[in-house]
């Protein structure tokens, strides 16, 4: 079959233009390769801009005691030991260099008094470790990388949505098929290596901090192409999302509010987090408000406040307070920084939060408490990759950033995401370059796969009647929120698995109105197969993991079970179609070298 579509050829093709994708592009470009980036939005709009608090790196600028070993330990403890330990090690070792490198490319981080990069406190990090720019660190990261990529003359395909990865005859990744959103025309790409950097999946939940883009395209395309997804049940519900007005419910409120002194109170005005300190964190957490309050100025004068426990702990506590009837009028709890810091301090340290609440909720956070509650924020699970090269099990396919699994285990620490993007974005670029240098790359696209993807994409136009994709999306979000949310049980996740089969059938009956040019209804119709494939993996993992660990909480199995700490659930599909059955196996964790084990066992 001949290719009659617009066609482009690259050495390395990167799908996704957030922090991981852009960093991967820089690395591949620096190695002299021909690099293309495809993004379904405009350049610079990726979800990375939403990251607020900072990027974690043990630079030791504020606390000289900090180093990669402490960061490694914090990351593994935060992840409840489900992490790929090699990824956690590389991340802790390399993130300081990745932060400094951003300043070589024009970033301007906030400074310490002696002119170094300032670092702030965040949950689960023993020392003040997050390099930041006020509360808009993600914007700084993406703009810096974007400007660097543009200065290097990289091809960027904007508002181009990839539908499916395409193999060659031997099963290697050979390219992909996509469509231009402005025109609706199809386009094919050949590439020796493809790096997935597509971000997360949060849009399948009703209350989420994720933008419309978080539909799990990369997770799903990897699954369909033959790769494995791990830890998909581990979803982070960020403790502090806005709860009112309803139209902004789920919108993120940075953890920086708590890092800078904000505390959580229930409707009785009580700082309830002291009642929710798990045994694992008791030795390092303050027992009284007096002790906690000393810590902000001097980490040696008291132990850390319980508001800065890892996110999974805080989210569960908020959930419990609301359930016990001590919530706010709109079903959240109060986040109070107004009574604890000056108005000037709050406006300087948290300018976006100040504007967000003032403009969207009519709340002045320098004089009033915020109402907040958990919001679906991040998926720890993702494509199973080799730590050093970001290679998946499919030759020619790499993954970095949120779409990759393993780095964060069962729960990600705040600030470890931005550093993850640049550490493993770079490694994916290196891994792809080495794969290409080794020479065993694909040479031709399997055009039957291309034609099949295009036929599926056009089917919703050909039906004379059928369902509105927006109705399916709304029902899917409500179903996942209700049954595979922050607290789960056997009955609900089994129900969800049954419902997901019904959603699969409903997607096959979508009718799209209008033409192909910039049609959001059609675009949503092409997102839904990904959302459903990913949701099936999440629900399957949630059903099988009969324990509670990190971002997976089962009310019928409330404790962690050491037997479940030995493996990840790994999902794959043999059919390669979006509706092919999911096959799930236990995939043993990477054995941990003794020297890393020793770091975890050190008493602190």
């Amino acid at each position, binding site marked *: 079959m001949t290719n009659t579509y617009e066609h482009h050829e690259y050495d390395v093709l990167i799908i996704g233009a957030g922090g991981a994708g852009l960093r991967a592009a820089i690395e591949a470009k620096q190695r002299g390769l021909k690099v293309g980036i495809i993004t379904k939005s*405009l350049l610079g709009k990726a979800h990375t801009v939403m990251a607020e608090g900072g990027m974690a790196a043990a630079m030791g600028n504020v606390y000289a005691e900090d180093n990669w070993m402490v960061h490694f330990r914090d990351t593994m403890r935060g992840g409840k030991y489900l992490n790929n330990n090699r990824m956690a090690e590389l991340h802790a070792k390399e993130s300081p260099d990745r932060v400094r490198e951003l300043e070589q490319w024009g970033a301007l981080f906030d400074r310490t008094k002696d002119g*170094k990069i300032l670092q702030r406190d965040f949950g689960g990090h023993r020392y003040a470790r997050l390099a930041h720019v006020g509360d808009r660190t993600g914007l700084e990261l993406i703009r810096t990388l974007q*400007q660097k990529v543009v200065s290097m003359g990289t091809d960027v395909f904007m508002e181009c949505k990839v539908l499916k990865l395409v193999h060659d005859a031997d099963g290697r990744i050979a390219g992909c098929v996509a469509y231009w959103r*402005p025109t609706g025309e199809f386009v094919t790409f050949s590439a020796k290596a493809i790096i997935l950097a597509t971000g997360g999946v949060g849009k399948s939940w009703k209350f989420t901090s994720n933008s419309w883009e978080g539909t799990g395209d990369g997770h799903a395309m990897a699954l369909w192409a033959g790769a494995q997804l791990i830890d998909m049940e581990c979803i982070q519900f960020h403790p502090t999302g806005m709860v009112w007005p309803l139209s902004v419910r789920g919108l*993120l409120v940075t953890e920086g509010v708590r890092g800078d002194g904000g505390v959580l109170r229930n409707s009785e005005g009580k700082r309830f987090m002291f009642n929710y300190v798990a045994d694992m964190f008791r030795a390092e957490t303050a027992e009284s408000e007096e002790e906690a309050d000393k810590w902000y100025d001097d980490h040696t004068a008291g132990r850390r406040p319980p508001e800065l426990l890892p996110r999974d702990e805080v989210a569960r506590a908020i959930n419990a307070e609301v359930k016990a009837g001590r919530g706010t009028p709109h079903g959240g709890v109060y986040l109070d920084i107004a009574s604890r810091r000056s108005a000037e301090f709050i406006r300087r340290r948290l300018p976006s939060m100040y504007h967000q609440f003032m403009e969207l909720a009519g709340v002045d956070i320098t004089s009033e408490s915020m109402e907040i509650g958990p919001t679906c924020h991040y998926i720890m699970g993702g494509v199973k990759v080799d730590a050093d090269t970001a290679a998946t099990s499919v030759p020619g396919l790499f993954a970095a950033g949120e779409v990759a699994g393993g780095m964060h285990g069962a729960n990600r620490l705040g600030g470890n995401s931005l550093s993850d993007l640049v550490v493993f974005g770079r490694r994916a670029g290196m891994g792809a370059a080495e794969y290409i240098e080794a020479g065993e790359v694909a040479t031709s696209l399997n055009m039957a796969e291309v034609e099949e993807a295009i036929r599926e994409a056009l089917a919703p136009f050909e039906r004379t009647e059928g369902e509105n994709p927006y109705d399916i999306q709304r029902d899917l979000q409500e179903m996942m929120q209700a049954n595979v949310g922050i607290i789960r049980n056997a009955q609900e996740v089994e129900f969800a698995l049954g419902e997901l089969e019904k959603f699969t059938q409903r997607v096959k009956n979508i009718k799209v109105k209008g033409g192909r040019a910039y049609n959001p209804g059609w675009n949503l119709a092409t997102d839904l197969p990904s959302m459903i494939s990913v949701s099936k993996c999440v629900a399957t993992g949630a059903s099988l993991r009969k324990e509670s660990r990190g971002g997976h909480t089962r009310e019928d199995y409330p404790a962690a079970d050491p037997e479940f700490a030995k493996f990840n659930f790994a999902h794959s599909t043999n059919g390669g179609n979006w509706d092919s059955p999911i096959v799930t196996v236990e995939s043993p964790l990477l054995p941990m070298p003794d020297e890393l084990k020793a770091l975890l066992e050190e008493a602190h």
Partner: protein
Amino acid sequence: MADVTMRIWRGDASGGDFENYTIAQNEGEVVLDVIHRIQATDAPDLACRWNCKAGKCGSCAAEINGKPRLMCMTRMDQLPEGPVTVTPMKTFPIIRDLVTDVSFNFAQAEKVPAFLPPPMPEGGYVMFQEDVERGQEFRKCIECFMCQDVCHVIRDHEENKAHYAGPRFFIRYAELEMHPLDQNDRRDLVREEMGLGYCNITKCCTEVCPEHIKITDNAIIPLKERVVDAHYDPVAWLGRKILRRTKRSSAEATVQPAP
């Protein structure tokens, strides 16, 4: 709450017209919420750009009752009573409905000579908060391009786009010019090719900036002063002739070497 009528421009490059959608209102909603509800029911093919819905990505700029606004940050209850008119940004070519072709801005971004720092010392660069703050103000820019949309130099004169970078890029040039580490000199480029002189400081850009960047006062006016100093100051001119410049000229500026 009473129903509201949304007058939304629908069409493409070949033409279009307003369509009215009358819809119930909910407490606390922004314009983008209402657009989304219209998409989900009456008009699933209504094209609009959006991403974060939190005022951080700058995707959803449109003209609401004739003024450039972010749809995600404009509350319905703060608009005057009566129908709400939503049109695409006027300065850029239409793709469809509320979506415009903003590639002019990406082309301008490609023309900016790259940031060029000295080699990084062991342990990283030393910069002080007061030195980075000026640039940080400009780096708050979310690239919504509303300043470009409202700037009359290109809003009313398509022909000026060929030689005018616009406010968004003047703050970028100002940021680089004021960056404590940058060694490129872009002053001649800004004067000769980026059309800084066309700006007659009416501050329309500053008024629409959702990040409250003082575009005119803190970027454009200081940039004009620096450019003038570089070009007309006879001592500086002589110094350049004799000593060559310590900063590279914009013509020589290239993509910086990889560290």
